[in-house]
């Protein structure tokens, strides 16, 4: 910050940041560029034979958006799945988190045992997603304890095939995502509310505002920046959805690929076929979507805040 006369410490700045940048360039930036580069080549393994790499221009992208025999376009379908799974989990996640954050910070309610509740609701966030998903798989399998409870209480005559129906698989995945993230979001939003000047709440109180008015006129507008941050990170997290559906459906996105996400699609091409061309094309699409989505959300949500 302050410069010393005669002695320049500038070179130390470079020395200190060099390891970070060397590693970033080698393991992230270069792979990022070669990923994009790959998208324009035909390059895969068919049995023991290696095909390519041959330059094919935009062929991989065209293939990505060409309807298959059944007339559905894989990329669009899996993007749709990802969005559905994300929305089903993220809407309750943000809504519940907002509610809890208001509860926890309300001095009128004065909630007891806050530390306990926070500890419990934050815990699923740290649990290994693969193991959590495996746990849900065993609990909801046809011979699992949930079905045992349903059968023994007589709610159904035969086991419910939770993992074979589109609705239940999607709901299970969303439920897991909700459970894993709402505690985290609650804590972020709480910090946001605590960061608001307390005088504003006191002033609203003196003016006779009720809880709802305080929430919509004071808390929500001032919370907008943190809310933007939360929604953007949740969205980018949602695009990366992989571990939970992958393990729950054993990588198949059952039934009929209705829970198959974009990253599962990407992972599929990286498996035995090592189809780097198609995987590269999917990566480019993923990159464009995540970049533009975060821009759109940021712009729409930050507008009312600025006014």
């Amino acid at each position, binding site marked *: 910050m*302050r410069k010393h006369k005669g002695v320049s410490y*500038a070179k130390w*700045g*470079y*020395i*200190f*940041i060099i*390891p*970070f*940048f060397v*590693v*970033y360039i080698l*393991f*992230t930036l*270069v*792979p990022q*560029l*070669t*990923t994009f580069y*790959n998208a324009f080549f035909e390059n895969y393994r068919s049995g023991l034979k290696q095909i390519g790499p041959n330059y094919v221009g935009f062929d991989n992208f065209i293939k990505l958006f060409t309807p298959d025999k059944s007339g559905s376009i894989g990329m669009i379908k899996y993007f749709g799945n990802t969005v559905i799974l994300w929305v089903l989990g993220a809407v309750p996640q943000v809504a519940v988190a907002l509610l*809890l954050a208001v509860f926890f910070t309300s001095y009128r*309610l004065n909630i007891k045992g806050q530390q306990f*509740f926070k*500890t*419990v609701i*934050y*815990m699923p*966030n740290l*649990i290994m*997603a*693969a*193991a959590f*998903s*495996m*746990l849900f798989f*065993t*609990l909801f*399998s046809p011979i699992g*304890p949930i079905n045992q409870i349903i059968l*023994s209480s007589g709610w159904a005559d035969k086991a419910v095939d939770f993992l074979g129906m589109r609705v239940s698989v999607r709901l299970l995945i969303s439920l897991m995502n909700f*459970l894993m993230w*709402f505690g*985290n979001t609650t*804590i972020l939003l709480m*910090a946001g509310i605590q960061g608001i000047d307390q005088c504003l709440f006191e002033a609203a109180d003196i003016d006779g505002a009720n809880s709802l008015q305080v929430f919509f006129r004071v808390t929500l507008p001032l919370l907008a920046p*943190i809310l933007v941050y939360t929604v953007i990170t949740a969205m980018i997290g949602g695009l*990366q959805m*992989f571990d939970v559906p992958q*393990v*729950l459906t054993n990588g198949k996105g059952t039934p009929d690929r209705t829970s198959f996400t974009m*990253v599962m699609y*990407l*992972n599929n091409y*990286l498996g035995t076929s090592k189809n*780097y061309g198609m*995987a*590269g094309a999917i*990566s480019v699409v*993923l990159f464009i979507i995540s970049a533009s989505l*975060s821009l759109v959300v940021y712009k729409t949500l930050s507008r009312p805040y600025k006014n």
Partner: protein
Amino acid sequence: MTMKSKGNRENTKGRLMMFGARFVVYFILIFLSVLCLFSFYMMLVNSSRSNFELQAGFTPWFSTHFFENLSNAWNDASINIPRGMLNSFLIAACCAILTTYFSALTAYGVHVYDFKLKKFAFYFIMAVMMIPPQVSAVGFIQLCYDLKLTNNYIPLIVPSIAAPVVFFYMKQYLESVLPMEIVEAARIDGSGEFRTFNQIILPIMKPAIAVQMIFAFVASWNNYFIPSLILDKADLKTVPIMVAQLRSADYSKFDMGKVYMFILLAILPVIVVYVILSRAIIRGATAGAVKG
């Protein structure tokens, strides 16, 4: 008189409403807590029951086969869980140390020194923070094959040196705690720049480093996507790969008590750390994002 009784009535009404509101709020909180704990409770109960008991039906009470299941899972021939836990621990510990040390170093470099590319370095890291890691997976895997680094822990450990999010956290921490006078005093006393960082700055940053170490450890312990693409040798596999393997095996042939025990073992280390350090972890989850 009338004024007073009216005030009293309103007061009672207000109190009743407050009571009702509290009741609803506590109900919601307890419901959500139960929802969070329910699946883990079932896992714990079922890990203490024999396969026969598990087939017979669900009971919410603990049984007596916990240690039997533990020894069966621990000594399983196809899924070597102790080895997997050791592998995961090794990788996660290395990641935790590297990511915190180098993020602190980078943040200190950008925070304290004046140099031409300072602004560029900061905004570059901020810009790439949002890019999902999966987007560069293709090139990353290719690089690993080209450098003969598959079935090797280097590509799982070394990249943690460059962690934009941790850098951001450290930078914020430095902004809030580090007075420049300390750096200058150290210089006057003849301390070299590296020595100043290692012996004076790092101890000041201890709370931030501790919290980020926990998060880095947990993230690495739980990481599934990249390791599953790089590791296929049985004795190099990490815990999440083994859990996924458990899923792809024909589970109906499995001793289910053992399956629950595998899941328990996979998440146990993180749970133990969390139970001991939950306060610090929850505080750490907030601190990074307040200004974000």
